């Protein structure tokens, strides 16, 4: 037969049950139908069960009085506050542990990862033992161990170990240390610090531009630190240098004044940081090992010291390999902070758990947990993806 229209392949007639398109749709409809049926079955059971148990639904309970104590709060909270407030306290506590944990475990992990590659045999071995010891034992066990050690090995408040001329006290109630009394100047010091961050950022841009045009490096780290510390200090001096401190003092059975780092918080942070830094160390090590050997040889040939070649040549390139797996470690630290519930630190899961037990509204509370963790996870991965794109190798 003559070809009637070039370019359009004549459609081969096949039976409908052999047509991949039709088969694909049938298959999808069947699977979605099954999932939908399962969902309907579960939901209808749930509704029936809720009605039978007379549990109200909806988020109105959030405005009711929570009525439970929270040991460690960053914002004003009392048992008379609402459930919403209690959950918010939990979210803030989770964020505090996560942010500090991410910073500290990145630092410690990098040091140990670089240490594992040290030419010093003993140092690399010790770093290797550290990694194996922490990676091969559950985090929860470390948390229990640190918590029990703090609460049983440290003395009670009356026999507290005092340090630094009776200003810092270690006891099984936590670490007490002096803080400056609240003063209106503190707000302005905070503003000055924010201005300092902006200034440092601008200075860094100017410094990079100068290095690109003239080849002159600019000591951005020391200058930046100077601005960040100097500006708030200047504001403090201008405000008359208020220096009234609140000192911890033993009154009755416990300390008053000063501020305290709770033992639960310490145990959680120490456990999370030590555990995660072992994984971070492995990521850093494999990132550096992934670089071609010529890079370190070239750096050595330029006369850079080991520290300089690590800081200026190897680590910046290794970052490309390091950042993606590091993102999942940061997500893990955030999720693992939920283990706080096991040692009694009031994080998000702990607050929600009490709320579920008091109100019986499991579904709404589980939704809140999921929403909170998902938004934190998504923000972390969005930030890390942005950073990853920024440092990615630009190829033409």
């Amino acid at each position: 037969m003559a070809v009637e229209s070039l370019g359009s392949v004549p459609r081969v007639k096949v039976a409908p049950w052999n047509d991949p398109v039709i088969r694909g749709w049938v298959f999808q409809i069947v699977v979605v139908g099954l999932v939908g049926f399962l969902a309907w079955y579960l939901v209808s059971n749930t509704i029936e069960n809720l009605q039978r148990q007379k549990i109200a639904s909806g988020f109105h309970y959030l405005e009711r009085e929570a009525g439970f104590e929270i040991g460690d709060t960053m914002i004003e909270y009392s048992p008379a506050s609402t459930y919403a407030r209690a959950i918010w306290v939990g979210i803030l506590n989770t964020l505090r542990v996560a942010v500090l944990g991410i910073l500290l475990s990145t630092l410690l992990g990098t040091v140990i990862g670089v240490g594992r590659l040290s030419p010093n045999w003993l140092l690399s071995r010790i770093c290797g033992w550290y990694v194996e010891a922490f990676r091969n034992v559950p985090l929860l066990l470390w948390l229990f161990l640190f918590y029990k050690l703090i609460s049983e090995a440290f003395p009670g408040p009356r026999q507290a170990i005092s340090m630094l001329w009776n200003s810092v006290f270690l006891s099984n109630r936590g670490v007490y240390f002096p803080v400056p009394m609240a003063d209106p100047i503190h707000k302005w010091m905070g503003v000055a610090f924010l201005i300092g961050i902006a200034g440092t950022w601008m200075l860094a841009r100017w410094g990079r531009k100068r290095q690109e045009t003239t080849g002159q490096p600019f000591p951005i780290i020391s200058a930046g630190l100077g601005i960040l510390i100097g500006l708030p200090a200047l504001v403090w001096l201008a405000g008359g240098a208020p220096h009234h401190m609140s000192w911890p003092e033993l009154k009755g059975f416990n300390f008053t004044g000063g501020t305290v780092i709770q033992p639960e918080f310490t145990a959680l942070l120490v456990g999370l940081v030590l555990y995660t830094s072992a994984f971070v160390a492995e990521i850093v090590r494999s990132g550096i090992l992934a670089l071609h050997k010529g890079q370190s040889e070239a750096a050595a040939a330029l006369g850079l010291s080991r520290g300089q070649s690590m800081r200026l040549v190897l680590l910046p390139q290794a970052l490309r390999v390091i950042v993606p797996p590091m993102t999942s470690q940061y997500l893990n630290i955030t999720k693992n902070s939920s283990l706080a519930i096991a040692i009694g630190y009031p994080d998000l899961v702990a607050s929600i758990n009490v709320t579920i037990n008091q109100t019986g509204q499991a579904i709404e509370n589980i939704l809140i947990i999921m929403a909170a963790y998902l938004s934190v996870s998504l923000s972390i991965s969005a930030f890390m993806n942005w950073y990853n794109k920024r440092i990615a190798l630009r190829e033409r």
Partner: protein
Amino acid sequence: MTDAMPAGDRKPLAPPVDESGVIGWARKNLFSSWGNGITTVVLIVGVVWILNWFLEWALFTANFTASTGSECRGGGACWALIREKFRYIFFGSFPYEQHWRPLFAVIAMLAMLVLSADRRMWNWRLLVIWGVGSFITFILMFGQIHIPLSLILFVALVGGVIGLTLRSALAAPSERMAYYALIGIGAVGLVLRIVGILPKWSIAIAPLSYVETSLWGGLPVTLILATYGLAFAFPYGILLALGRRSNLPLIKGLCVGFIELIRGVPLISLLIMASVMLPLFLPSGTTIDKFLRAQVAVILFAGAYIAEVIRGGLQSLPKGQFEAADAMGLNYAQKTLLIILPQALRVVIPPLINTFIGFFKDTSLVLIIGIFDFLNTANQALVDPNWAGFPGEVYLFAAFVYFIFCYSMSRYSKYLEVELNKGTRR
């Protein structure tokens, strides 16, 4: 600088440093420069100091024989506590005189795992090993097993479908008839059972006294949760990974949604959800065992993570493999089962073992919903007022046991990585 020096003034270089022998090795690896030397000395002093303190505490002043906690006080470690409590730590509140049962269950599971580690067993033998091993394990733990009719029908249905898919092109007509018969019996039987025509009926096998799951504890619980969690999550993860790579939009959306949702939240919240919400989901009157609820949560959680590992393997396959399979005229099932999956799985075996190590550790979280796994029984051993105040000893002992398991698995994963790459290495 030195280039300007006239040739006659050049000093002869020092002879190369001797790098052989103990002294040579130490010079190269410990004292290659001033900074290195100082680091080494500081580290040696630190290690000796810590070792000295630790050995003093754990060995020289330790008490191995005390019969109560108060006799232990004052000295170093109280290992007598472990001697007193190790049976509880390993087996929980399983009836004391029946402890041989969880012991042999643990041995059966370890044998299963060790045999699965041998590459020569990676074929149909593995299915036999797991079938027999699981049966022995559960009959030892439960004492009596009731196999419900619906389970038998379900197994018939699944077995028929799998057999038909795997051998659709190769099977002889009579074999194919057998598979169709299996599917038919399974499907019809299940429908009749759900409608209520077939009665609720089960085969009971009862050689030993019945022990309910709330009495289980210790190492067998940790091993069961981790092993069967992974065993069920593995096929589930493969399906999710294939779904995520599929070009059918609805399927892909479902799989992506499930994986991201599970991976975005902590395991604890899933466990709490399983323990609080699963009873709400089911018709009133049905109760599910707490242990089973935890197992379900672990399987769902593990499935999402395994799916991502397997997706990595699928992505690492060159496009040519898919195209070649299409060119051969294979259908989707044949392409996936015969060409794609075997290659993808080989790539991801080492990361899969690392995932397994992770799950082995993560099963410890079930203590939050009140299941007595190994960490929880260790924890409970501290509660006894006669022996209060020795957390370090118990946790070190538990850490040691976990370490042995996880470390040997990670060694095996390293060995396997080398072993599997032998073919591609030059």
